[in-house]
């Protein structure tokens, strides 16, 4: 099939065609790890996480004699990260495609309301959980259809649906919190009882890992995933290559909505009530997590690993600050500074390699 098959071609696929700038080959696992793009791209974010972690470990040990690296504390941080992390998985997909979803916080609130409402009405917990996910999916469908059919930019569409969905949640809940009978849903993010310590983490954290693997696999190893990167990197080129751009975008917002619904399930598990005013402004934390992890708001860049690290960095900061006894406003200043610094560093790295 080749254009010039008469030419003798010898290719060794392991050798760079032109060796300039390629890392010096090292044997064995270290080299394989180094050449793994997932690891190399997230090195900066991981180093940031480590730095924040070590900082608080030292600070807490010196000033208060507390152990930040205590397994219990680590587990707590992980549990608290889960809500933002699950939503950040969805936001990663959306941001890689060159879009943005501002309705995440409102969708989470709606999902908690739906779940609590269903439980209150006597539905079994599994059905209630499915109801929350379905609510997320419906919001994603709305976002996706508006973006692809009306051709309005995602920022505006989801700014609108942010208010719209929040309104629906408040309406459904008659402007108050919905109490729900206790069920196993509340254990998703609860500290594990000693009898089940062998699980290491509560089910919700395992669910996060499962979803992260699924989304990461989707982005890297499926046609849809590669198409999402292509649409985010250059929509015109994607169309030229025969990629059904509107269908890809619809899938992106559906997935984003579904994962926001899943984050809502986690939120409900932690709060044990349906709160229509909850998760206010959470979408910004979610976007920040993706961006700290190397996601680019102009699309085509971003990774699940990065987003998870980003979410962990923010939660570690929050935990560290509160254990230091620092007031809330200090946390906010520090978090804001970290977001700007992380992205500035990333840009700097880009410029050097370009």
């Amino acid at each position, binding site marked *: 099939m080749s254009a010039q098959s008469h030419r003798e071609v010898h290719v060794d696929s392991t050798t760079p065609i032109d060796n300039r700038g390629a890392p010096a080959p090292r044997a064995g696992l270290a080299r394989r790890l180094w050449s793994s793009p997932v690891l190399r791209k997230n090195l900066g974010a991981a180093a940031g996480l480590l730095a924040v972690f070590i900082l608080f470990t030292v600070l807490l040990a010196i000033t208060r004699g507390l152990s930040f690296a205590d397994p219990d504390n680590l587990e707590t941080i992980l549990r608290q990260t889960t809500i933002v992390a699950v939503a950040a998985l969805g936001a990663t997909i959306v941001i890689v495609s060159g879009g943005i979803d501002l309705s995440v916080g409102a969708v989470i609130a709606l999902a908690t309301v739906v779940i609590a409402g269903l439980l209150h009405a006597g539905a079994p917990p599994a059905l209630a959980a499915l109801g929350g996910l379905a609510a997320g999916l419906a919001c994603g469908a709305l976002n996706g259809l508006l973006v692809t059919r009306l051709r309005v930019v995602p920022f505006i569409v989801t700014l609108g649906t942010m208010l719209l969905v929040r309104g629906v949640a408040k309406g459904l809940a008659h402007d108050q919190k919905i109490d729900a009978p206790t069920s196993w849903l509340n254990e998703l993010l609860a500290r594990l009882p000693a009898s089940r310590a062998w699980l290491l983490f509560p089910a919700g954290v395992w669910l996060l890992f499962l979803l992260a693997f699924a989304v990461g696999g989707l982005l890297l190893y499926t046609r849809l995933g590669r198409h999402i990167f292509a649409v985010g990197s250059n929509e015109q080129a994607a169309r*030229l290559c025969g990629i059904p751009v509107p269908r890809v975008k619809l899938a992106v917002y559906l997935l984003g909505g579904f994962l926001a619904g899943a984050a809502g399930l986690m939120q409900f598990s932690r709060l044990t009530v349906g709160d229509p005013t909850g998760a206010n402004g959470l979408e910004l934390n979610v976007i920040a997590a993706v961006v700290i992890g190397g996601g680019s708001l102009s699309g085509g860049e971003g990774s699940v690993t990065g987003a998870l690290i980003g979410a962990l960095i923010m939660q570690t900061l929050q935990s560290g600050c509160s254990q230091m006894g620092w007031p809330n406003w200090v946390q906010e200043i520090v978090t804001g500074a970290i977001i700007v610094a992380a992205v500035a560093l990333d840009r700097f790295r880009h410029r050097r390699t370009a």
Partner: protein
Amino acid sequence: MRGVKKRFGATQALGGVDLVVAPGEVHALLGQNGAGKSTLMKVLSGAERPDAGEMRIDGDAYAPADPQAARRAGVAMIYQELSLAPHLTVTENILLGVEPVRRGLLDRAAMRDRAARALAELQHPTIRPDAVAGALPIAAQQIVEIARAVAVGCRVLVLDEPTSSLAQADAEALFALIARLRAQGHAIIYITHFIEEAQRLADRFTVLRDGQSVGGGPMAAATVPEIVDLMVGRRVEQLYPRGARTRGAPLLEVTDLAGAPKPIRASFALHRGEVLGIAGLVGAGRTELLRALAGLDPIVSGRVKLGAYSGSATPSLRWAQGMALVSENRKEEGLALGLSVADNLTLSKLPALVRPSALRPLTARWIAELDVRCQGPDQPIGELSGGNQQKIAIARLLHHGVDVLLLDEPTRGIDVASKAQIYDLIDGLVTRESPPKAVLMVSSYLPELLGVCDRIAVMCRGRLGPARPASAWTEASLVHEAALGSDTDSEAA
């Protein structure tokens, strides 16, 4: 400029460039892509500082710290990609950065006055100073940029490939303008790929190759082959290779095709084993024809028969039917610059489950076969030179295994060596493949059309003339028909 050097890391981008330009002279700067033209521009404009060497203007040392300083010293750049603020008015653009201020407020009257004077000086008083820059045609936007240079009293004007986005008539107007600026005593550096343009305009020339000035002198004393040899550094034996071509069965038959708003009417048949060229002016509707065929733009009426299929189709259906487009606009439409070589190559043909490790050797094969210079399949394609990017853009179609290749300006903005490789590649598609493929090629570069194509048709104002053998055309007859339309067409009309 004397002995100007610049290195980036391990790459010596400029290794000793000498350039002397006199007032009232148009000096052509020729060279392939990557020869160091753009780096030299950056040094001149103050965007980059040279590592060695010196620059003087009127005998005074010239070492601009930034582009603003260069502008104050009288050096102005007109980049290929125009740099106007599209939402601001013509006046605001012309005086951007040097706005006159009175008592802390913008002096609107003085601004309008200075802008109008600059435009009058260029003999373009028809451009309204209050017009919004983005709404003007490209040619007028270029005039506004030149007016911006004139308004601050520039002495050295640098134009980078200024005709690349202009239609013939606009280019003529630009040439006249350059002649007037020369007469006013401006020193003009004219950067171009087109030797013919340099010969028309320039008094003297300098050729850059691999970051060095390798030759130059009075333009009138040099011939085209001499200059090409200087640019390439070796003799180009056969720029347009031609294997034995056998015309096969018709693959693509187009009857009375019309799009919105162009093409108006196009009919032709493209056979296996032939390269059919389409000439015409920019804006004649050639790109629109290819886009309609590729399913990117809607077809209003007419018939498209591709092999066993007929009717209109979506881009993905066209790929499946075996026809696809290489866009004239690599950066905006052709390639996803942030993604890797492998991603770009395989984008149209991905299995439902993708194993990146399986894509790499596949890509490496094409990299080797088309002699693409890159670090490997994982390198972001935006880091490659234009010629190497274009090879991947074409390889995408070959990898997909299409039969009909729609090539829109396939050698725009790429260096001579890559051009020669792409000509050889196109020839190979119709001679060395079995079964041979069919190529429909749009180009504004007439020697290329005449050299590569078997038959050529000319498009004029949305109407496609009859295809005639390439040997029946000359550059002059192509230009004539592009400007006036074909005789048969005027009979029909």
